[in-house]
């Protein structure tokens, strides 16, 4: 089941596989020019985090492992995922505030942007690892 959840979490990236959109996605997600980050990269990072939050919610809704159903949620994974989501939200909201304050402009919250990317990667790894 973890594989299925991971598949869902990464679907937004893999859907672009093998086409020009993948390159655009990578450029948008990875490009940090000097001390600023583009609004496009920020929007991709925000929505990637939102996608993993939605996937994490589905995982948390599963019954606890050991209570019967084969399709279940592990307490240890839950303990990792919840604080990561809450930390990621703070970064996401800070980036959105940056977009609002600087419409259409690059923003200087490079560290926050990188933190959000790291959190999204850590969440993906947590949901994928048994």
């Amino acid at each position: 089941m973890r594989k299925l959840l991971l598949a869902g979490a990464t679907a937004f990236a893999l859907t672009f596989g093998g086409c020009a959109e993948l390159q655009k996605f990578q450029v948008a997600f990875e490009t940090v020019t000097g001390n600023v980050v583009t609004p496009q990269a920020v929007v991709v990072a925000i929505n990637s985090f939102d996608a993993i939050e939605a996937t994490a919610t589905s995982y948390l809704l599963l019954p606890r492992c050991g209570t019967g159903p084969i399709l279940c949620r592990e307490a240890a994974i839950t303990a990792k995922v919840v604080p990561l989501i809450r930390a990621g939200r703070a970064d996401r909201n800070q980036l959105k505030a940056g977009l609002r304050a600087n419409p259409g402009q690059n923003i200087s919250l490079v560290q926050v942007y990188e933190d959000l990317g790291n959190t999204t990667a850590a969440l993906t790894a947590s949901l994928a690892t048994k």
Partner: protein
Amino acid sequence: MNPQLIIGALQLLASFLPKIISGAAADEVTSIIAFLEQVIPVAIQVGEDLVQPIRNIISALRDSGALTSDQLDALDKQEAALDAAFDQAADAADAADKAAG
């Protein structure tokens, strides 16, 4: 359901094949069916929840990614619902884990 979810589901099904081919006992078949029945609603929910973020990413890739004030308001609403659903699920999971010790 998006293609990657379908691939995930197929991989899951493939993992059951050796048991089925080797002639699984009736109770094993029953448990496999029960498992697959549990997967369906979760797979549908995950697929549905990913639609809006994926659309937003496609939109950002097609244009400059610069969001209007209205688009940011819509994103706020979408994320408020997402956060509320997560908090509710996290609280319920926390209560279940505490109750289990």
